């Protein structure tokens, strides 16, 4: 007899706007408190204290335009936020400061979340959608120099890039980029040469979100239709469809794989979070708490496995925090 799904461990309220982005930072040592960063539609980035369940600070750096991506750069004191004011802001939050140290003007009016990858100590690569319609630009941070611009070939009707993921197999190997586009295809780009290695049409509708497991060379993408697509990368760097999974309701906003690669979570337009086992995509749970579409899901980076959490931000202004499958 299966147990009914668990309730959220707690719920964070107080953003007074739809929540579009979430990022945990819980790996710090004592006395650092585990925190959760959230980006909202009213332009604020809230810093939530996960012990008191209150927002400690609200960062206002995007001129009240919606913040749709929040990333930490190494520690909880270095934060990156991306907003609809076409800017990416870099924050310094050490010792209680709340200042924007640097910003990048991307000139892009889309919704594609940027992707960060630390390639060396203090050196980051950031991929964002560029000004021109189908292009993705890769910058190096903190120097903000352009590494390359990835243009699809002439005649390829990919549409806007919808989601990006930078990854490298291990520390020394060349970084690669997976990009999901509006026409439903996922493209693997080689950054050093600036050209596409492989393209796979996974969906009939735009790819809304994707995540990739570099150890198993397997990735998953979700779209506005009812299908989740799992694809793999073979030795020749070619993408192939591995399997697909049909959902009950259409529309996925976000997908994320837990850092231990055991489970993954999807954020649905039908107000539900779905948990699957990553190995065989076995459906494990459907978490039904929110009353509007869920925009983002995120797993925490707790060192202690039993303390791991899952956060989901929704259009109903609430962030639900769940503790699920923490025993493995």
């Amino acid at each position, binding site marked *: 007899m*299966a147990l009914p799904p668990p309730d959220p461990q707690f719920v964070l309220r107080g953003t007074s706007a739809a929540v579009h982005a979430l990022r945990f930072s819980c790996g710090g040592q004592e006395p650092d408190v585990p925190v959760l960063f959230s980006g909202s539609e009213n332009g604020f980035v809230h810093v939530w204290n996960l012990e008191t369940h209150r927002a400690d600070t609200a960062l206002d750096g995007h001129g009240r335009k919606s913040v749709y991506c929040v990333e930490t750069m190494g520690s909880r004191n270095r934060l990156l936020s991306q907003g609809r004011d076409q800017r990416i802001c870099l924050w310094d939050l050490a010792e209680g400061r709340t200042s924007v140290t640097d910003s990048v003007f991307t000139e892009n009016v889309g919704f594609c979340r940027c992707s960060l990858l630390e390639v060396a100590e203090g050196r980051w690569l950031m991929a964002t959608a560029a000004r021109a319609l189908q292009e993705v630009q890769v910058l190096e941070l903190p120097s903000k120099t352009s590494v390359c611009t990835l243009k699809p070939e002439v005649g390829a009707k990919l549409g806007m890039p919808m989601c990006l993921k930078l990854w490298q197999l291990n520390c020394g190997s060349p970084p690669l980029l997976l990009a999901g586009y509006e026409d439903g295809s996922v493209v693997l780009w080689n950054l050093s040469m600036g050209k596409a290695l492989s393209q*796979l049409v996974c969906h009939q509708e735009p790819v809304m979100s994707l995540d990739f497991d570099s150890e198993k060379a397997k990735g998953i993408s979700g779209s506005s239709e009812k299908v989740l697509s799992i694809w793999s990368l073979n030795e020749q760097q070619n993408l*192939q*469809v591995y*399997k697909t999974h049909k959902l009950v*309701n259409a529309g996925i906003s976000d997908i994320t794989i837990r850092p231990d690669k055991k489970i993954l979570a999807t954020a649905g337009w039908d107000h539900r979070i779905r948990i699957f086992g990553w190995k*065989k995509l076995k459906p*494990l749970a459907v978490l039904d708490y929110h009353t509007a579409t869920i925009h983002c899901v995120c797993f925490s980076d707790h060192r202690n496995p039993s303390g791991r959490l899952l956060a989901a931000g929704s259009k109903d202004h609430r962030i639900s925090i769940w503790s699920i499958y923490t025993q493995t």
Partner: protein
Amino acid sequence: VCFIPGGLDCSISFVSHVLGKVCVHGRQKEILSVLVPRLTDLTKSDCIWQRICWRLVECVPDRWMEAVVLGFVQRAPGADTLSRLLGNLVVKNKKAQFVVTQKVLLLQYCHTTAVLQNLLGYLSLDSLRRALLIKVLQELLETWGSSSAVKHSPPEQQQYISKAILICLSHLKEPEIESCRQELLTSMMEGVKCHLDSSLPQIRRLGMIVAESISSKINTDGPVLKFQYEEDDEARELKSLLVQTPPFCVVPSLPDEDRNEEADAALPLVLESNKKSHTAAPVVPDEESDAELDSDDDLIPYDMSEDKELKTKAPVYIRDCIEVLTGSEDLDKWEATVKALESLVRKNPAATREVSVELAKILLHLEEKTCIEGFVELRQRAQVAVLTTDPIPVAKYLTSQFYSLNYSLRQRMDILDVLVLAAQELSCPKSHGKTKHSGAQKPCIQLLPGSDSSKDWRRIVDERIKSKTRRFATGQSQVELAAGPNEFNSVAGHFFFPLIQHFDRPLTTFDLLGEDHFVLGRLVHTLAVLMYLAVNTVAVTAMGKALLEFVWALRFHTDSYVRQGLLSCISSVLLGVPAERLLEDMTEELLETQSWLGDVVEKDADGDCRRLALQNLLLMENLKKKLRTVPS
């Protein structure tokens, strides 16, 4: 009759005279049934016999030539046989040429398809005669394309000409098509325009089929004309004429299906070759994972039985529905509202009555925002529900809008359909809310909602006549329907009179008596139904009188669909108005109508009109008889 072959000069002219005389007296069947098979056998391989046969027919005097040629054409088993028997008679003899190229094709239309095949095949088999084939095709196309022919000639003749055109096309060869391509194109364009203008669906379809065939012949490569129409036996038969089968096999092939399949197969190939990315088949997951320790087994799924499809809730109050339909941007809610509206209206009559006109207005202008299945039907049912819940104000609104500016023809016809459906519902006795399939006041007749063709009304009138003439009060053996007040009684006038009032007043965008004769046809049919449904209401006499005057004003309308509607109106009047009232209040109108009906029966070009007029005359006779038997 026996000939001496070989070497002897015999004079055949006497035999020709005999043949001619016999044929002209109407004995073609007897003599040719013996002669033609004999001659067929004899002429199969022997050219002397062929020449004898040709001399035989050539020597028939002109005044009997027609009968003989017709007889041969009808009797011959195939075009090649006819060719052997007649030779180049059409080229040599003027009268024969006239019969074959003009009379049979353009002036008569009683012959079968086989006769047409024989005749046109015969023309195509010899190079001397092919010139005639092309001339024939041009003349046929001219007739096919003339708008007056389309309007005034009977449908059977139009079908005959279309068949002839298709058979001609099937015989034409490439170089001939090349030479007259331009003419074919022009005639096709003109002809298809006249045909599509017609109100009768059968004529429209004939035009479409012929135009498609011509287009496919003149554009062998490249895009061809393709229409959407109902494929039934008649259409398939017509299309099968396009391809000539070899003389031995009798079964016609259906080339169009093959051609379409080829075209369809070409498209996916083109699409696939354009794709550069691989959409490879999914890799079969490794089976050996069963053997290794699956750490997923540690993860126990939770109960997911609550995970169902998300359904947006529809509003529960009528005023909320109005709000959603007029303002809301939420498309899911809009869809749910449209689906739920009819039942809400029916469950809340009091609330609906408060906002009925507003709701009717919204529904009349409601356009499809998202792609719902059956949107048109949902909207219509909701409109009918509103109209039946609050008939008088809503009918007033709808009938006034029918004659207003700036509505599309589709909207005006929607108004008519809604009025008819609502009238039907109101006039039926309600058996606890189930109003769908209940019969009319007099039992056993199922009224079908008026959609497109006039066939439904004819069927009703037919059944009605049958029941009227044969019934001996068997009605009571049926289960008594629950009696209830006739709700249509109080509102029949409100439905009927506003519609009939302004038909002769043209507006800038809407002229019933001019271009919009299709809507006029629908209006007339609607009035017929409303009249019929008004039986047993108080207003029925006034309605009948007004309707007869209306019919009198329009009786010479050129559109046959309108005339059919007018005749249904008369049927409804005769059936709906009680006989005593008919005789007392409407005597002159009835007499005038009767004389007009007599005219229609004899002179109208459309077969359906003639039939309806005849039925009306029968109805009138029956009425008279009935009145005579009732002691006054």
